[in-house]
């Protein structure tokens, strides 16, 4: 079959297309974005009429996918790890409804926080929701597991979680394709009450979900993805989850590991596999990317009768992603180091682009706030979060999608007036609207700056659900028309912009200021594409 050089994310997308996907639903978020983008740009996906445009947030994405599953077709939902928090209500309850058409939820975790605000481990969500979780160790396995995952989802009528991490998401390797499957026909659930989680029905469904656990474990034991590789030296046994397996193998270039190795890529982990390792080995080293989930599971039962090594006893650093060196050290091997970084080298943090509209917005805001005490600006998730760094030092919070408006509201409720929220256009429609409604209903004195660059910038310039709708949304929510002010964030309008912001800071109710100018990256790209189009004419 055809061999392709694909990012882990692209391998997942290609597999979904090949496995008869009907719709993919997602909100952009590093490191998950390229899965959906690949489907959007795929000619095969277009020919097969696979639905792929962006959703407003992860919750709407998850629920739409559940609707696709309800009618018997195959659906995929993709998000970064913290996106699963947003989708959690729908996700956790989807464990209760179960699936009809195959349903795979891909959560891309970001250990070491390359582009995130925490390093939560999505495997927890799999366990919490009591559904099967797949954790591929490489690009080919990711591809193959999508076929398996859809099949598993339909056979056992359950959503399936696929957990990946940054290194797999954003690393390229050769992937061999399989022959494609057609999309499912429309086929409603045989029990039309399956998706009604009324208490009386939910209680039955929950018993059913509990009863399914045994099958989930059997699948994990027999699918072939979890492997017990015996070794002669039983002074140590090694459990390697997901891509941790690669870092283990890297330290044995000839492939000869003297110790028994349990490779885990499918959950719930069969107790028999863990028991065998614990019974046969003197010590057990647990290698897992993210939280010490397996390690804690083993320690909980067995702390007294055998030594478990991992992140909890300091054998491996508690935080941060794994790498070949950390694994070598945990195995007691020597690691090589090159020369030290010369002291002349300084850090080069990311920064707002030259020409970015957020620069002008922050310059105006900083000047408008100059006579007030510091610490009044509540911000959000996006490029504009970089306003926290020098030279702007313009914002004081960044917690989760939408928290700028609601935290400013809380602070104002408690007496900090004026309080300012800074939120991007795409983040506003993702999770800001309901908070704005709260503020309007309480007539809270806050100034909300919706920085509208007409795109989802940080993740690479995807279309924003907010474009062309912001004023109408604010009016609809009940913000007074006179206090919805649009400004042009450009140097030449600086004085005027400062004046506008100062006026609204004094207004004792909800005001919205919309600095509006296209993202410099999407503008440049548009110009380049235009030039190319003219050239080829």
């Amino acid at each position: 079959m055809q061999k392709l050089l694909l990012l882990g994310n692209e391998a997942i997308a290609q597999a979904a297309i090949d496995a008869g996907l009907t719709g993919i639903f997602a909100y952009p978020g590093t490191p998950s974005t390229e899965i959906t983008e690949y489907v959007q740009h795929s000619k095969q996906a277009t020919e097969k009429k696979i639905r792929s445009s962006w959703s407003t947030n992860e919750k709407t994405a998850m629920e739409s996918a559940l609707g696709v599953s309800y009618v018997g077709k195959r659906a995929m939902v993709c998000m970064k790890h913290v996106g699963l928090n947003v989708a959690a209500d729908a996700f956790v309850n989807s464990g209760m409804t179960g699936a009809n058409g195959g349903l795979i939820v891909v959560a891309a975790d970001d250990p070491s926080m390359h582009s995130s605000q925490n390093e939560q481990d999505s495997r927890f969500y799999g366990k919490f929701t009591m559904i099967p979780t797949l954790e591929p160790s490489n690009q080919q396995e990711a591809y193959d597991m999508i076929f398996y995952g859809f099949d598993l989802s339909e056979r056992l009528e359950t959503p399936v979680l696929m957990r990946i991490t940054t290194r797999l998401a954003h690393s390229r390797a050769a992937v061999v394709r399989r022959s494609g499957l057609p999309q499912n026909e429309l086929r409603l659930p045989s029990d039309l009450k399956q998706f009604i989680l009324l208490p009386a029905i939910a209680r039955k469904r929950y018993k059913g979900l509990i009863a399914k656990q045994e099958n989930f474990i059997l699948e994990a034991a027999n699918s072939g993805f979890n492997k017990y590789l015996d070794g002669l030296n039983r002074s140590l046994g090694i459990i390697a989850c997901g891509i941790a397996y690669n870092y283990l193998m890297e330290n044995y270039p000839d492939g000869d590991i003297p110790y028994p190795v349990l490779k885990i890529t499918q959950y719930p982990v069969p107790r028999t596999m863990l028991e065998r390792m614990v019974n046969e080995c003197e010590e057990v080293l647990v290698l897992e990317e993210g939280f010490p989930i397996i390690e804690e599971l083993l320690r909980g039962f067995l702390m007294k009768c055998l030594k478990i090594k991992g992140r909890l006893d300091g054998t491996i650093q508690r935080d941060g992603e794994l790498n070949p060196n950390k694994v070598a050290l945990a195995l007691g091997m020597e690691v090589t180091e090159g020369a030290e970084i010369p002291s002349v080298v300084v850090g080069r943090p990311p920064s707002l682009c030259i020409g970015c509209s957020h620069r002008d917005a922050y310059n105006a805001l900083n000047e408008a706030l100059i006579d007030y005490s510091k610490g009044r600006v509540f911000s959000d998730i996006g490029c504009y979060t970089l306003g926290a760094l020098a030279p702007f030092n313009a914002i004081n919070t960044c917690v989760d999608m939408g928290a700028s408006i609601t935290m400013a509201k809380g602070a104002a409720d408690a007496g900090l007036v004026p309080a300012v929220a800074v939120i991007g256009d795409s983040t506003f429609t993702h999770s800001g609207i309901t908070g704005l409604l709260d503020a309007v209903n309480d007539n809270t004195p806050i100034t909300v700056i919706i920085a509208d660059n007409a795109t989802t910038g940080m993740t690479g310039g995807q279309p924003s659900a907010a474009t062309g709708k912001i004023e109408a949304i604010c009016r609809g929510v009940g913000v007074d028309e006179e206090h919805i002010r649009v400004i042009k964030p450009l140097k030449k309008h600086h004085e005027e912009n400062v004046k506008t912001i100062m006026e609204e800071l004094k207004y004792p109710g909800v005001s919205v200021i919309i600095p509006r100018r296209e993202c410099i990256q999407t503008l440049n790209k548009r110009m380049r594409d235009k030039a190319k189009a003219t050239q080829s004419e």
Partner: protein
Amino acid sequence: MKKDIILAGVGGQGILSIAAIIGLAAIEAGLHLKQAEVHGMSQRGGDVQSNLRLSDKVIHSDLIPTGKADMILSVEPMESLRYLPMLAPNGWLVTNTQTFVNIPNYPEKDDLMAEIEKVRNHIALDADKIAKDMGTLKSANVVVLGAASPFLDLDYQLLEKAIAMLFGKKGENVVTVNLQAMKAGRDFTLKIIKS
């Protein structure tokens, strides 16, 4: 055969095109390949790197262990030094000398060059100037690739073929210009290692 390469630069400088050219050539040569990239926040003018691994055997880790990289290939001098802990004692450092200054505390160029000089095996060239003299400033990254090409253990013709494949859509002129840029970089290095 095993080549572990750290590609280094600043977000937006085009290290992923270099990775794509080497990657295409490696696949054509029948080698295994893994390439870990940086996406997201760092791409906004921050330091970026890519771990590119080629081998005739199966490659497991997406990341190169420290002290084991065969080469640092950098399109910016300060960024080339950031990854010295990754470089093997006999590895090569190939870097552009043209600085990319987007931070207020950027060090003196002479201090950077002095550190680069200390690396046993190094090639430092002003790829921007070479590219500009050829009237193709955009191809500075391909000049650096050319300068690294003698150490890649890849058939040079495969690299040429990869450029034709990658830039073919953009027209014959773009292909020719990039082939010249790669050749200019290669000649720079060949002259040094022969002398």
